[in-house]
């Protein structure tokens, strides 16, 4: 029973109502997918067809060569490789730093723990625009501008991920680690061999949202990099836009290629996406 039956209302009216609602939901879903579908459709058109009216309907065969041409028009392969490198390095780094720190906050006793943890939470509230300018100057003084260092190093630490890991470690039963401690295993062994394997769901969530934020990151790479050799996809696309102002098929093909890794990741790690997005508030 999807719709509760109400007294005094004929069943057919109700059926009609839910059918209408269903139709509205389907049309809405189609509208939501239209921009991505239009990206695909445009990416397969020859350039001259883009400026024809009406825009719907193929006049000619799909031009698959657009997907070959994007690699020649700009060093798009380089941009993709850079984005993969930066996103994977940041994900690996955040997993290490946040699980270690989260474990310390959740399990270990040390002076000032709660004050330090509160300060951590405080830093989550500060928007990136405030820290961006001093962070840019730090990158400049370190000589890291226009290098992978600027793209990766500041992104290896995430108070938000640390917070998530702490919360997850707190939900685990302590008894297993205590048993390990009695067996003479050190604290690090208890963390590495017992707590960490149990925290896989939290690690997966942190990994997915770190990769996603990193892949979609735009403002920071825009300000700290300049050369093609270290450019990431998001910034590369805007260059595409300037260079090939009217070449919509190529721009759409490149945009779609930038979307694909995220979609593939979504297919394989769907539930961690929802968990990560719901708990972190990233968009």
């Amino acid at each position, binding site marked *: 029973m999807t719709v509760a039956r109400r007294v005094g209302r004929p069943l057919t009216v109700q059926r009609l109502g839910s059918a209408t609602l269903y139709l509205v939901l389907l049309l809405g879903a189609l509208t939501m997918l239209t921009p991505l579908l239009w990206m695909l459709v445009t990416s397969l058109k020859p350039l001259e067809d883009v400026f024809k009216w009406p825009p719907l309907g193929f006049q000619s065969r799909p031009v698959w060569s657009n997907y070959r041409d994007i690699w020649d028009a700009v060093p798009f392969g380089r941009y993709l490789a850079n984005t993969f490198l930066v996103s994977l390095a940041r994900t690996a780094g955040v997993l*290490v730093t946040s699980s270690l720190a989260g474990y310390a906050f959740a399990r270990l006793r040390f002076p000032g723990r709660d004050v330090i943890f509160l300060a951590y939470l405080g830093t989550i509230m500060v928007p990136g625009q*405030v820290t961006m300018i001093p*962070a840019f100057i730090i990158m400049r003084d370190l000589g890291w501008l226009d290098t992978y260092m600027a793209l990766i190093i500041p992104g290896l630490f995430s108070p938000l991920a640390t917070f998530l890991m702490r919360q997850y470690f707190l939900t685990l039963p302590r008894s297993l680690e205590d048993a390990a401690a009695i067996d003479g295993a050190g604290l690090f062994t208890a963390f590495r061999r017992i707590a960490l394997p149990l925290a896989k769901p939290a690690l997966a969530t942190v990994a997915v949202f770190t990769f996603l934020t990193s892949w979609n990151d735009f403002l920071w790479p825009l300000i700290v990099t300049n050369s093609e050799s270290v450019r990431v996809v998001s910034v590369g696309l805007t260059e595409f836009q300037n260079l090939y102002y009217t070449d919509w098929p190529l721009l759409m093909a490149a945009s779609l290629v930038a979307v694909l890794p995220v979609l593939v990741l979504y297919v394989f790690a769907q539930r961690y996406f929802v968990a990560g997005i719901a708990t972190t508030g990233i968009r």
Partner: protein
Amino acid sequence: MIGATRETTFGAPGAAPPTLRRRAGPRLRQEARWAALFLAPDMLGVLAFTAFPVVAAIVLSFLDWNLITSASYVGLDNFRELLKDGVFWQTMGHTVYFTVGTVPTSMALGLALALALNRPLRGVTFLRTAYFIPVIVPLISVAMVWRWLYDRDFGLINYFLDLTGLPVIGWLTDSTWAMPAVIIMSIWKGLGYNLVIYLAGLQSIPRRLYEAAEMDGASAWQRFWRITFPLLTPTTFFVLVVSIISSFQVFGQVYVMTRGGPGNATNTIVYYIYHVGFELFRMGYASALAWTLFMVVFVLTLVQVRTQRRWVYYE
């Protein structure tokens, strides 16, 4: 003999005074050393790239510095300039316009969709996914296709307007329509987020409440306003706070679709900070703008937290 008195009051004669060292014990000291090791990598990074920059941003906002010539201390001049800066007020106004345009609509649609999709409909997974996909795709990629959809002469949106006999619109070239265009695109991008959060909220409401209400003959309308809506207020509160914070930080779609234009029509506060900091290289003034943005968002959040007990229902 004060010492002796103390001795008799606080401890048995002969017992060592409780010092920190004694209380801590070797095991605890070892634990604290481990904690330092565990924390060090993360904390050094957070200190260097978040905590220190927060403090540095305050210092910077009192400086006049273009990164090339040496910095000079100007006191509160940056903040005085900001108050008199017409573009700053304009961008604040546009940011509020954007927020008012996106947040309520996106929340209402998100809730309505969650209510509709919180049922075992045929193909409900597909429907949920379709609404959710825009949330995860890269903002820059989709801002590109929206620029194309909004194209005045060959865009798909004007094609549909034309089909239905409506006048075509210069979405991104007409200063009246540019902000609505950015707003529509942003609602499309963020709607699925609200849907997912509301779905989680709905699933946490116990079914027995609805069963009891139905036995009492409550209509669907009554069930929504007396059960669903009140029990969802914590979710609504969370979505509201997060939505306002993120909509005050709108940047990517503006950068790609309009570059703040036409004229200044879509120039928002973060785009202005970017412009002042990284196109004009006025680091001090940009920091003052960034701090002002932070304070505005902070106060808005505080007001929401303070007023929540008037409308948020916690069990």
